[in-house]
């Protein structure tokens, strides 16, 4: 890890990783730094690339950082990470992937994540994707996420993909057992010819389960975004999908929220809105002394906050 690596990682972590924090840094397909503890262990997988993280019940308010960095031009990395959180544990996992690629050969990271969350555990998962380099259309980040939420547990996911990732396919499947809660906030910004597909399938299997899926996105230039979500109420449950997108220039955005109730006690709602920045919003900020460009930047910053 050199200074450039740390600078790139800073974009997804917002802080530097200290040696004694619980972490695993993967760079160009290899673990380059790891520190774990008795309560939170990080073990390399044997048959596949990736790690298994075990969080014991005694863990309260601890943070694990597991970023991935790709700096070798044209590198393809596939990683399988399992997060096993024991009953009653409380932990925050900070993950994400940063790609730096200046050559025309594509660099690609595919992350396959499995969350096994024990009874009454509380987990927050923060994931950022970031790309940088001189040439467009050569940085790909894909994720496949499978979530199993135990009875009474909760998982809060915040995912952010703001810039530099040219192509991305993100699939998430979740299964919720009794009394469990899932909250997902996704923020996406695409530009130039970026292409993103984000899909969710959330199965509210248990009684009194709750899911809230919020997607906010901005599509600029010629970029394309597709948001597909499916919320299935198989029991007494509550679920809500909200998809808001700001579309600019020649971009294209598609949103398909789907709700399926297989139980009379399932309460499911969805709302989706796609539109350009309203002229009224721009004018309001202009009356406060901003130029049109500054107003646009403030609206976008607020929307993605």
């Amino acid at each position, binding site marked *: 890890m050199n200074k450039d690596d740390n600078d790139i990682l800073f974009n997804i972590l917002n802080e530097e990783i200290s040696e004694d924090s619980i972490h695993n840094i993967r760079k160009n397909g290899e673990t380059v730094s790891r520190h774990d503890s008795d309560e939170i262990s990080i073990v390399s997988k044997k048959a596949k690339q990736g790690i298994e993280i075990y969080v014991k019940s005694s863990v309260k308010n601890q943070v694990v950082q597991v970023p991935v960095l790709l700096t070798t031009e044209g590198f393809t990395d596939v990683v399988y990470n399992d997060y096993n959180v024991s009953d009653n544990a409380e932990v925050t996992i900070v993950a994400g992937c940063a790609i730096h690629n200046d050559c025309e050969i594509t660099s690609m990271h595919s992350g396959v994540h499995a969350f096994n969350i024990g009874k009454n555990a509380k987990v927050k998962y923060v994931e950022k994707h970031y790309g940088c380099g001189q040439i467009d259309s050569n940085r790909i980040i894909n994720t496949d996420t499978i979530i199993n939420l135990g009875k009474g547990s909760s998982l809060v996911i915040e995912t952010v993909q703001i810039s530099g990732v040219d192509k991305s396919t993100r699939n998430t499947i979740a299964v919720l057992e009794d009394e469990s809660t899932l909250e997902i906030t996704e923020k996406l910004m695409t530009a130039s010819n970026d292409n993103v597909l984000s899909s969710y399938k959330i199965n509210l299997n248990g009684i009194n389960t709750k899911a809230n899926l919020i997607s*906010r996105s901005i599509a600029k230039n010629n970029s394309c975004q597709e948001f597909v979500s499916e919320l299935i109420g198989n029991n007494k449950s509550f679920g809500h999908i909200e998809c*808001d997108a700001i579309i600019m220039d020649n971009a294209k955005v598609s949103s398909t929220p789907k709700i399926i109730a297989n139980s009379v006690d399932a309460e499911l709602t969805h709302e989706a809105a796609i539109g350009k920045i*309203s002229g*009224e*919003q721009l*004018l*309001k*900020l*202009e*009356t*406060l*002394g*901003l*130029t*049109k460009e500054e107003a646009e930047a*403030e*609206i976008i*910053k*607020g*929307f*993605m*906050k």
Partner: protein
Amino acid sequence: MLELKNINYKVDNKYILKDINLEIKDHEFVLITGPNGSGKSTLVKIIMGLIKPTSGSIVINGYDITDKSVYERAKMGITFTFQTPVVFKGLTVRDLLCISRDYYYDDYIGRELLRKVGLCAQEYLDREVNNSLSGGELKRIELACALGKQGNYILFDEPEAGIDLWSFEDLTNIFKSMKKSKKSGMLVISHQERLFNLADRIVIIENGTIKEIGSKNKISKYLKNIKCEKCMRDCNE
């Protein structure tokens, strides 16, 4: 001084405003009233630059600003409050106050501004300025932004709209205090008698033209005559 010289505004060859001439002196409180659809809001929007007049000019201290953009007018010290406040997804009350203060902002300033409009800062600074706020709350935030921005001339488009009767005295006090501070000239569209009492001059606009300008007493007589004429007309019909 803010001067409106021969302002005309036509849509589909129909006059919305016709030959408007008006001066607002520094620190003067001018109130505009008149029937719905008479062109009052259009006039203040023309001053702010939200609408371009068909002809005529707007002059500040001898400087013609007719072709200036909204942003340029804001920078020159014209402030505008919308009759129906604009909502945003993501921008918080703090964000708007900060922008209104040209980014010279801290939460002490934000708390003071919100206190003046009767809102508890702790409850509101982090709130998004979206449809989860009531009309009255949005209106107060709109006023707080205007107070934050200040400016040489502040244009209020029906500030009382959406404010409940119980809070109306607070609103009146805000205008009293602004008038007393003598920091800005104010042009206020209103139908509220309590604000009539504060105004230095009242302007009546009807069918896109200025029908009368004067003190509250002069205007009261005019309004009374209109009512009588209307009664007579209604009776005859």
